[in-house]
Each structure stands twice: as C-alpha cells, then as structure tokens.
C-alpha cells in the first residue's frame, strides 16, 4: 500500500468511527423527537420501537399546547433572557470602558473586586439571594428572575481586553473636538467591538435562557414560569404521559436549535475565546 492510500484508509475509518460516535451522542435528541410522534398505545407496547408508526401524528403537540401554557413559558423565558442580557451587557460595557480608558485611584482594586465575583459560585449564594429578592417583593416578577445575573465579570473582562486595543489617543482627540465620553463610546467604541459584543450577547442570552434553579426558586405562579422550569412540571400532570412530555420537550427544543444553528459560529467563538482568558 502506498502512503497516500494508507492515509486515505485511515481517514475513512476515522470518519466512520466519528459518525457512529456522533449518532450515539445525538441519540437522546433523536429519541425525543421520534417519541413526540408516538401515541400512548405505542409507548405502552413491548418491545419499545424506536420509530413512531407515523410522522403525521401531530396530536401530541396539540394536546401539549392545550394542556400547558408552553407558549407563555417561552415568552417568559424570552423576556427574562433579553432583560438580563441587556442589563448585564450595559453594566459590563460601562465598567469595561472605565477600566480601559480612565486612570483613577483604586482602579486595580476595583477591577479585582469585579473579577473576584467569578470565584463565588451563584449556587452557594442562592439562599440569601432568595431572602433578599423576596424582601424586595420581586418574587414572581421578571426583574426578580434575572436580577442576580446582572453582574457579568467575564463579559466585562472580555470587553475591557477588546477596548484596550482602541488607541487612547483617539479618545483624547475626540474629547478635544468636544465629543463626550458617552458619545465616543456609542459611536466609536461599540461599533468597533461589534463582533465581541454580539458573541457575548449570545453567550449571555443562552445562559439566561437555560437557567433552571434560580427561576424555579423565585416563581410560584404558574404563568410566571420559564420554559425550563415549566417543562419539568409536566411530570406532575400525570406520570404516564410520556408522549406528551416528549412532545412538549421537542417544542421547547425548537428555539434552542434554531439559535444553535444560526449562531453556532458565534457561540463557538465566544466560548473558546472566553474560556482562554485564564
């Protein structure tokens, strides 16, 4: 065998292995989608079949939407994720601008104060944060559901790194021409950093969209639940409604997958660059 043929054979075998592994990895998702088309009877039969009898059976989706306020849940999630992302990004941009363009007393210390928040995992602070939020009468409100995620230290750090590539002289020149800092931020800094901003927004949106524990704690009323919490409440309706649960889960996965497909490149970039900050 020539060397070329050898590498070709290796490539083919690696590709096949990778495809088989890939099928195993996506199997739960495929199973969920197939299951969403099955009837209750099909679920009860043994041996369990992988494929549903027909893909035209849309009854499950209809019933899932009828029985649970899934669309309302999704709307709630959307509002919380957008609000949280908007505020978090605003705060991060302002702080990053200050750290990148100003010299002031205590800069290093304050920078550390913000960064050190990354060391305190939110899960361990939930109990006291819950008490605070309930005392502020923010239970069952959109604000309460995202107020604890307004501080994004990693976002701030990434932005500051990016802002520092903009020459300071440019800002000084702009100021001499009568351009205020806010205007400089809006019309020079932000447009220049658009790729990073977009990536960080996506990353933060997905974080908030996928949040489970905190929204669960601060919501009691059914119509305020986010989609991640709502989906898990379906078991309470009846434990044997597997076909309905899978239909509902499939529906909730749709927006996630759309986001994943559209923004895949951005997500990947954001995650890898954010991670290598060190």
């Amino acid at each position, binding site marked *: 065998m020539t060397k070329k043929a050898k590498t070709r054979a290796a490539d083919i075998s690696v*590709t096949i292995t990778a495809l088989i592994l890939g099928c195993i*990895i996506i199997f739960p998702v495929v199973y969920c989608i197939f299951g969403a088309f099955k009837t209750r009877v099909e679920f*009860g039969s043994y041996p369990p079949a992988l494929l549903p009898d027909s893909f035209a059976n849309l009854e499950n989706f209809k019933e899932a939407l009828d029985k649970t306020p899934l669309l309302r849940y999704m709307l709630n999630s959307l509002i919380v994720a957008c609000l949280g992302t908007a505020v978090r990004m605003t*705060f991060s941009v302002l702080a990053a601008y200050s750290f990148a363009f100003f010299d002031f007393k205590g800069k290093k210390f304050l920078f550390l104060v913000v960064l050190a*928040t990354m060391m305190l995992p939110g899960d*361990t602070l939930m109990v006291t944060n819950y008490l605070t939020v309930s005392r502020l009468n923010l239970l069952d409100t959109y604000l309460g559901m995202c107020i604890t995620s307004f501080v994004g230290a990693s976002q701030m750090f990434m932005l500051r790194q990016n802002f520092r590539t903009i020459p300071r002289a440019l800002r000084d020149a702009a100021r001499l021409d009568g351009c205020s800092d806010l205007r400089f931020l809006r019309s020079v800094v932000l447009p220049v950093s658009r790729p990073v901003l977009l990536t960080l927004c996506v990353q933060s949106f997905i974080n908030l969209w*996928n949040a489970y524990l905190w929204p669960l704690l601060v919501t009691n009323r059914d119509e305020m639940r986010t989609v*991640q919490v709502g989906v898990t409440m379906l078991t309470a309706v009846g434990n044997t409604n597997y076909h309905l649960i899978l239909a509902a889960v499939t529906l909730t*996965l749709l927006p996630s997958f759309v986001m994943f497909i559209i923004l895949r490149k951005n997500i*990947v970039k954001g995650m890898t660059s954010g991670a290598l900050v060190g």
Partner: protein
Amino acid sequence: MMLQKNTLRRQSGWAAQGPIRRGKQIKPYLYLVPILLFAIAFIYYPFGKTFLYSFCTVNAKGQITGFAGWENFAYLFQHRNFKIALLNTVKLTAMFVPLNLCVSLGLALLCNKKRRLSGVYETMFTLPMAVPMSAAAMIFKILFNPTVGYINYFLGIQLGWFEDRKVAMYGILILCLWMGMAFDFLLFLSALRAVPDQLLEAASLDGAGFFTKLFRIQIPMIMPTALYVICTNMVLSMMTSGPVMIITEGGPSRATTTLIYMMYTSGYQSSDYSLAACISIVTFLLTFGMTALALVFDSKRNYYE
C-alpha cells in the same frame, strides 16, 4: 492621512500634558457604580450573610436570633444526610472530571484533522450544547426508564437507572457527561488545532509515532486548556443539583443527594437557613480548595521544556 496622523499625535500629546480637572475624576467611578452596586448586593452581601448565618441561629423568616459559634457546623458534621451528600458529591466529581476529560479530549483528537465530513460529525458532537439541562434531564428520565425506556431494551438488561440505589448516581453521571462533553470538546479541538503543524511535521520526520507526538507535543501544548477544563468541571460537578432535582429528587434513599441539593431542601423546604448556610460554606471551601490545589499543582510544572 499623514496630516491627520500628525494632528492626532499633537493633540493627544497636548491632552496628556494638560492639567486634569477635578470634575473629570469622578466620571470613572460613575461608570463603575452599576456593576459594583449589583456585585455588592447580589454577590458579596449574600456571601457575607451566608458566612454570618452559618455561625448564628436563624429563624424561619431569615432573621438572626442569636450567636451559635461552631454549633451549626458541629450539628452539620454529625448529620447523617450530610455525610451521604458529601460522599455522593465528591464521588460524582471524582468520576466526572477525569471521564469528561478523557472523552472530550478523545473526541477532539479524533476530529483534529480536517476531513470531508468534519462539519457533520463536529456538529453532532456539539449538539448536546443546544439542549438545556432541564430538557436533557426529562429526555434521559424517559430514555432510561426501566419499563418504557429504550436503553434497557437495546442493551438487553434490566436496570433501574434512576430507581436503583446502587446505580442511580451513575445514571446522573451519564447525563452530566452528555451535557458537559460538547463544550470541552470544542475547547480541546480549538486548542489542538492551534498547535503549529511544523512542530508535528518535524517530529514525524524524526520518526515520532502517534503516541510520542501526543504525549510529547500535543498534550503539553494544550495543558493550559486542560487545566481550565479541569477547574471549571470541578466547580460544575461540585455544584450539581439540577438533574438530581428533576429526575431523582435526591433518592432513592438519598443515593443521589448532593450538597447543593441538600442545601436547597434544608433552605427552602425546611427553612433551616443556618444549616443551608453551613452547607454552602462547606461546598464553597471544598470547591475553592480543589481549584486552588489544581492551580498550585500546575504552577509547579514546566510544560515547555
């Protein structure tokens, strides 16, 4: 262009020499007010309060009623559930971190070279990233169900993945691996692809085989990424609570109770805030200790000899 550059330089020089007016000096702080305010209110204050709670007696409304000293901790350490939860969490972490490292690094090595179908299987490997934890937990709950689930039938076994006391934690582990792998795979893949080709080619010319290249070049080069993955995964698995809450509710007979899950049940269901605070302090210290250890261990080594 030349002119512009010149004026720019002159002006900036002028600005640098010019006196800084006092009014200007408050501005940098103003920009920092929002983030600092919220960092204090929702991160530092709760941390301080949790610390305080763990040394005090606290009533069901969250008000401090007295000083307890080490009593809360003493109570916690002899609490039967705590020992179980601590053991479960540490066990999960001890299994999750190395397994996840091997699987995600293995997949990344498999994909490292770009081939015709790279895009297809890379997307397959990263797909779990698009599935939120709660959805994944619901799917696995049904998929691994002993009566209607497909896994037992497919493997031809009778195993109560989430019902059997001895197996339940492994069920949770599989779910955690499935959810965590994709992200780490991407990190490793981009780290591996950043290794300069010349290095590998030069090594090949010198007769280095696959494993020599792997252990002498690739692994040392991606060590910073590996360290990051190890640290974040330690934190992640020490904080495991979602899957437990959705699938097993800590059961069967506390086999899957983790520290954060116990904190949740004692804090919300029993309103025992001082106990919950103690658990969160212990979890925090453990996690902090582990990551610190990993970093110290790392700083003693020299990768690029």
